[in-house]
């Protein structure tokens, strides 16, 4: 018998130390297996380098387009309300070329569209579309950087070379139109409902005016609010630095926390504006025009004196497209001035083909009554054919160079809208 006051050392050890049994061994094995399983779930990167010289770009083009032939069909993905529902342009295209087109309005938002197609493109699978329209944005930069887009063969785009305005030929997000060519452009400015806003806003500071407390709508998109935050501070968004972003974010937070902003909207701002839930808001030029035309509302759109951003929705062909030749034929078809005019007449966004203005004018001269008035209005609208003075006030989005910069940008602006 051991002395009761000094317990058996083995007993003590048993009390104070864990003993590893068979079960524990299994547990440890299981844990390390789980660890391995966790580590195996890594997501592979797909980044590729942008061609650095024009010779390299040219060889990429030749490599891709060699041996590609016309198949007689195109699958075209576009945004809602971005073409006459009768698709007169596409019908004409089929008549002239024999290529049939399946047109689907499947793109609602750049971010969600990117999220939808990214896994398929990463796996090199077809996304079922040969042609799509994407806005210049963080996502477009990524599509280019990840190597998901076909380098365009400009020899197959004679109308583009001939008819497209110079300013659309050297956009900062894709200099030289290596991967993208413009479909239409629009401005982000201030829209207001004159029923409630009696003095037309001329400056971004109207969106910070306490008298509109709770009646101001802003966009949820980080780039859109960032641009407004910078414009109101007199910063050119295109040339902004991270320090400018912090300043803009402060200004935007102040606007939110003093209760001026009612809500951060996606494209759904136009109904609340028409109903009077909001009185003035960030808006895209064509939306206001189309709403007035379709619902008889009297909403107004202004480009503030500080300037505004112009964005461009671009044609592009995904790498996995089945019918690239047919797709590029269709792209070029849209740059014929009569076709560009017919499209602009319906969508009321800026057309990249300046010659369309004269065609719309002559169409107006031939038309009568209500149609004539509408066509004249479109031909003279600074929102469809911006004058050089308006263009001088327009800036493009800041192109974010790499994922580190993108992450920095989003981490500054995203918390503002997801408050």
């Amino acid at each position, binding site marked *: 018998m051991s002395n009761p006051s000094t317990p058996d050392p083995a007993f003590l050890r048993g009390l104070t130390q864990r003993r590893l049994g068979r079960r524990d061994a299994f547990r440890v094995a299981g844990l390390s297996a*789980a660890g391995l*399983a*966790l*580590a*195996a*779930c*890594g*997501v*592979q*990167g*797909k*980044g590729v380098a942008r061609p650095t010289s024009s010779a390299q770009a040219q060889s990429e083009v030749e490599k891709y387009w060699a041996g590609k032939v016309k198949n007689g069909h195109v699958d075209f993905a576009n945004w809602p309300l971005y073409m006459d529902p009768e698709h007169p342009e596409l019908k004409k295209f089929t008549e002239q070329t024999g290529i049939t087109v399946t047109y689907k309005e499947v793109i609602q938002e750049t*971010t*969600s569209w990117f*999220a939808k197609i*990214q896994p398929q493109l990463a796996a090199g699978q077809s996304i079922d579309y040969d042609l799509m329209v994407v806005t210049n944005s963080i996502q477009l930069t*990524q599509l280019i*950087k*990840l190597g998901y887009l076909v380098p365009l063969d400009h020899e197959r785009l004679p109308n583009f070379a001939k008819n497209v305005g110079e300013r659309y030929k050297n956009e900062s997000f894709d200099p030289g139109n290596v991967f993208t060519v413009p479909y239409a452009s629009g401005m982000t400015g201030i829209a207001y409902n004159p029923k409630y806003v009696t003095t037309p806003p001329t400056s971004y500071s109207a969106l910070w005016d306490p008298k509109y*407390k*709770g009646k101001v709508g802003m966009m949820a998109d*980080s780039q859109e609010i960032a641009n407004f935050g910078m414009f109101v501070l007199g910063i050119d968004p295109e040339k902004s630095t991270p320090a400018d972003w912090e300043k803009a974010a402060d200004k935007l937070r102040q606007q*939110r926390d003093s*209760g001026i*902003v*009612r*809500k*951060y909207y996606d494209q759904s701002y136009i109904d*609340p504006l028409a*109903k*009077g*839930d909001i009185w003035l808001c960030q808006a895209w030029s064509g939306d206001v025009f189309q709403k007035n035309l379709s619902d008889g509302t009297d909403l107004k759109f202004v480009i503030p004196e500080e300037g505004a951003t112009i964005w461009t929705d671009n044609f592009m062909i995904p790498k996995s497209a089945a019918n690239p030749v047919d797709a590029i034929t269709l792209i070029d078809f849209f740059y014929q001035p009569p076709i560009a005019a017919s499209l602009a007449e319906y969508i009321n966004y800026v057309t990249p083909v300046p010659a369309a203005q004269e065609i719309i004018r002559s169409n107006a001269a031939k038309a009568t009554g209500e149609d004539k008035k509408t066509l004249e209005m479109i031909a003279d609208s600074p929102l469809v054919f911006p004058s050089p003075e308006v263009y001088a006030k327009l800036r493009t989005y800041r192109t974010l160079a*790499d*994922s*580190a910069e993108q*992450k920095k940008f*989003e*981490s500054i602006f*995203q*918390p503002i809208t*997801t*408050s």
Partner: protein
Amino acid sequence: MRRLRAALTPYALIFPGGVWLAIFFVVPTVVMLSLSLQSGNVADGFVFTWNWQSYVDGLTNYHDQIIRSLVYGLAATLIQIVIGFPVAYWIAFKGGRHKSVYLFLLLLPFLVSFVLRTISWQFLLSDNGMLLGPLKNIGLLPGDFRVLATPFAVIGGLAYNFLPFMVLPIYVALERIDPRVLEAANDLYAGKFQTFLRVVLPLSLPGVFAGVLMTFVPASSDYVNASVLGGTNTTMIGNVIQNQYLVTQDYPTASALSFTLMALLLVGIFAYAKALGTEDVLEVAAR
């Protein structure tokens, strides 16, 4: 041989459910856990690095939204009990032979898509809409009064959208109360109120428990109501997670937030089940 078959039967029975759980629960959970510990970006890929920083970042930046989600979920659940219990009680005891008609009427609006129902609230509650417009015109409400883009709209929307999931389990629990128990209470000189408090209410609690589970969990992780009916400072954690995945493409932070939310809800449910007991609940849920 027969012995072997007998031994295998339970496994064969659990096989379909087991496979289902493995594919749709275990695998996604493991992938999500793994993603939450990775670092990198979409262009260069994500690599598993035991990167706990995503949890730190997620919690420091978005703890407000997590707490708000739980508070909104709880508030919506309480409203649902207050509204749902009397409804279930009325259908179970006063419904008579039309019970199934009333149940059908209760469910009828819910045959319409969740998102559409929420958007129609937006129309109803708009600042000059059919509800607030007339009240403002006759001067009952100040001109700048609003419901949309406030926490009340979001909580109201949540309470509305998940209401049947509260009413139905309570109804089931009430419906199966043996009328003879009520008669016995009456025979023993219990008044109506006494009977309700000491017989009906305790017997209905398992239904309430199941209802709370079925509404609190989806309500706290919902993002539709906050994005349609909310405004500034009403963002819920579901919106943040959606944004982190789709807009920022910060998969690790999104996964870390999802995992945190899941863990919080699980801990809450276990504590709640422990406090109230689970056997009756399982019985009700199984019906």
